[in-house]
């Protein structure tokens, strides 16, 4: 039953998050902004469109969006939502989760290179570069969580036990939560790493890689990006808000509330921060890495 809810949430909710983010930004800018459901309309429209593909491209170009979406969806099946178990859970699923995104990155960048465009190559290069720096930060975070939980699986590290750890290990958990949030921002290509609505190809990361995609493929990409935000937000919420009331339905509400909070936070960050210079991005990622490393040290001393 709850697995069905889990799957439904994963399939239905992601576009909404992006709508909320945009709405928050609009409010900060003092505009009304697009409707919250705008992305749903866009996806529906894109699904109908016919596509134009460069003659340079091969099957890899079409595989990009497919793999990106598939990996994200698969990852979504691993993350417990709030107090609810994930449909798929096994020893080491944390690592599988991390490497799924790497797989998605591999094919997205490959698809970008398939077009042979210098701009998309540039974007791909940035994607893998920053991805490589985000990886250690993520793993230091996972180390902290597993050391607390005692096993390498979401069900344990984000389980009810975490609430007690918040009592004795609050400092490290705060640090980890922050660094995971930074990782979320970089993985989903939000400000301050990348600006989803910039129009200068030279400065883009994610957007420039998908320049040549159109129609249904572009739809899959947008949908996949939204789902990625959803999944990572779920992890951050799982770390930051491990509360669980006795009632399962209450737990769902709790979780949704946490997600809303996290999304709004993303929106706020985008509104109050400017996009970093590309050269400054690594510094931020290394900082995140250090944060969670410090968290680990605090834990073992």
């Amino acid at each position, binding site marked *: 039953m709850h697995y069905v809810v889990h799957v439904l949430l994963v399939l239905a909710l992601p576009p909404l998050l992006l709508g909320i983010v945009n709405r928050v930004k609009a409010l900060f800018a003092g505009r009304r902004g697009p409707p919250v459901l705008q992305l749903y309309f866009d996806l529906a429209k894109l*699904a*109908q*469109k*016919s596509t*134009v*593909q*460069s003659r*340079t491209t091969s099957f890899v170009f079409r*595989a990009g*969006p*497919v*793999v990106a*979406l*598939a990996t994200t969806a*698969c990852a979504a099946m691993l993350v417990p939502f709030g107090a609810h178990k994930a449909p798929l*859970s*096994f*020893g*080491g*699923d944390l*690592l*599988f989760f991390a*490497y*799924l995104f*790497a*797989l998605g*990155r*591999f094919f997205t*960048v*490959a698809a*970008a*290179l*398939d*077009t*042979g*465009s*210098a*701009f998309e190559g540039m974007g*791909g*290069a940035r994607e*893998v*570069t920053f*991805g*490589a720096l985000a*990886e*250690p930060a993520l*793993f*230091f975070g*996972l*180390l902290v969580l*597993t*050391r607390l939980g*005692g096993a*390498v699986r979401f069900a344990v590290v984000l389980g009810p036990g975490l609430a007690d750890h918040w009592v004795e290990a609050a400092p490290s958990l705060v640090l980890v939560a922050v660094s995971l949030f930074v990782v979320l921002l970089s993985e989903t290509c939000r400000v301050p790493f990348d600006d989803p609505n910039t129009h200068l190809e030279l400065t883009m990361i994610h957007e420039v890689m998908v320049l040549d995609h159109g*129609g*249904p*493929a572009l739809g899959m990409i947008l949908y996949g990006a939204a789902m990625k935000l959803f999944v990572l937000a779920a992890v951050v919420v799982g770390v930051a808000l491990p509360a669980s009331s006795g009632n399962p339905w209450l737990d769902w509400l709790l979780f949704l509330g946490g997600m809303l909070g996290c999304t709004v936070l993303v929106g706020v960050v985008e509104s109050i921060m400017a996009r970093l210079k590309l050269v400054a991005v690594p510094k931020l990622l290394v900082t995140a890495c250090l944060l969670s*490393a410090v968290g*680990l040290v605090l834990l*073992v001393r």
Partner: protein
Amino acid sequence: MRWLIPCAIALTALSGVAGLVPARRARQGELLAVGLLVLGAALGLAGSVVGFVAPDALRIDLPWSLPGARLLVRGDALSSMFLAPLFFVAAAGAVYGLSYWPVREHPRDARGVRLYYGITVAGLATLLCAANAVLFLVGWELMALGAFMLVGTEHERAEVRGASLVYLVSTRAGTLCLFGFFALLYAVTGSLDFDLGAVPGRASATELHGLFILALGGFGLKAGLMPLHVWLPGAHANAPSHVSALMSGVLIKMGVSGLVRATAFFPSPPLWWGAALVGCGIVSGILGVAYALGQHDLKRLLAYHSVENIGIIALGLGLALVGRSLGAPALVGLGLAGALLHVWNHGLFKALLFLSAGAVVHATGTREIDALGGLGKRMPKTALAFLVGSVAICGLPPLNGFVSELLVYLGLFEAAASPDAPAWLTGALGAPALALIGALAVACFVKVYGVVFLGEPRSAKVDEAHEVDKLMTGPMAALGAACALIGLAPALVMPVLARAAHTWAPELAEEVGPVASLAWLSLANGLLLGLGLVAAAWLAWRARAAATVRDVPTWDCGYAAPTPRMQYTASSFAATLVGFFAFALRPARFRPELVGPFPQRGTLFTSLPDVVLGRLILPAFALIGPLLARLRKLTQGSVHAYLLYMLVAVVAALLGWR
């Protein structure tokens, strides 16, 4: 039964002789030779299977008249662990060689290549099942010298000569370390036979340290652990590709097998052994892949990835050693199982990558990454093979690379959760390092695959490249299938790993490792593939429903006439990441002098020479040479000086020694 592996060795050793026939019968000759080698490999595979189920069935113990020598052949699970990939890759490479290096294209050296190939394989098999130092060293040197002849195949080219000399000198350094190792072992145990766990009772602390240092020197050189990797890139890059596959896939693993065997002698090794291996592993892993990122030469790049993967293996083995020192069987089991499985996996996907790279070289005649491009359309099978290899070597699900890295990861997280400092330090350093290695590997292989196989050809020669024939694609297919099999059904190999790990550390239980979670992993991989198929199907359906236009140029942000030369190059792709590691890699940039408003046409050229070789060892040689040359002033041909030396000798000896 017990003669299975000796027969395999004999067949492979002699296979090349069959190829030594006059030119007009050359084709039959090489077919016969490869046939013999494949037959021998089949026998050997059968033997390794026997080794897993009934180790004692393979044991041979005959007297041998040389001092300290015994014909002691042992095919236990550990040997089989290395024998299996050896024979598999060797057979694949031999078949591939039939159309990659045939006599009709290389009349002068093809026969030699086949002969030395067989000898190398035989040496490898010999040393793997040898249980006596003399027999081991014989196999070891057969391997080393055969490989040396193979590396020097195209010795008319200066680069090849340089590479083969560096290889020869460093392999000799390793062999001499092994002389020392076995001699010291003899001094401690009084025998040159490998009997497990016999040592520590009698060994003093200094002897223990000496043993490990000598073993690390000898086997680490062969394995290519940083900073002992100096010979590896040149040799792998300059050998014929199926030889590179054998060397990178199997030969360097002999260093690993040696380290595994050597450490097996010590039930409770000093803690610093494991720590040292973990350190070497991390350094090799990160710097290896960082070097790979900066290479322009396709095969040299793959060679540096061998350094990286050896680093991962060393990380696992070091973890197991740390676990053994601390008496933590979980670490031992996971670390060793991960290392051994990675030996298999790397053997498979690195051989696959070298074979497909060889196909590219064969079709285009260049190893220069930035001169290639767009081969995916022209050589689809090769491209697919390379893609599979890339995904596997990056350790990405659903292929085999992920499984072994998962085991190592689980061990590292286990260690990180443990209370005592050495263990959690290992985990806390190892896991993020492994993550970084994986991410960098992704960057590197996206780069290679994208630049070589995607986009547009960067030169005319590449434009008219054609797919290679079945003799070359067949072996690639076999290797790729093996990668997929281990990736999708990892639970199958767990019992084998458990047996091997048990042989190494008898205190371990017969079945080690998270078999259950590996079954779940297969399920998750299945789910991943399912989702992918659904998405692909939907996209295809939409594409059929709505018209799709295909014959337009890439949208290049409004630029009218893009040319292939405007594509992003491999060098630029990796520039930023290489920049992060500049402190260790010391990249060389040759940038043009741009003056005035309308500067002359100039070219930028970056390169990443090996720091250890280029800035440490070669300068050292260049320094020592003149010093010794100065010594030569002593013999400038004056007979008076010669007589004077005698007088001095007489006086000194008479006064010194009475």
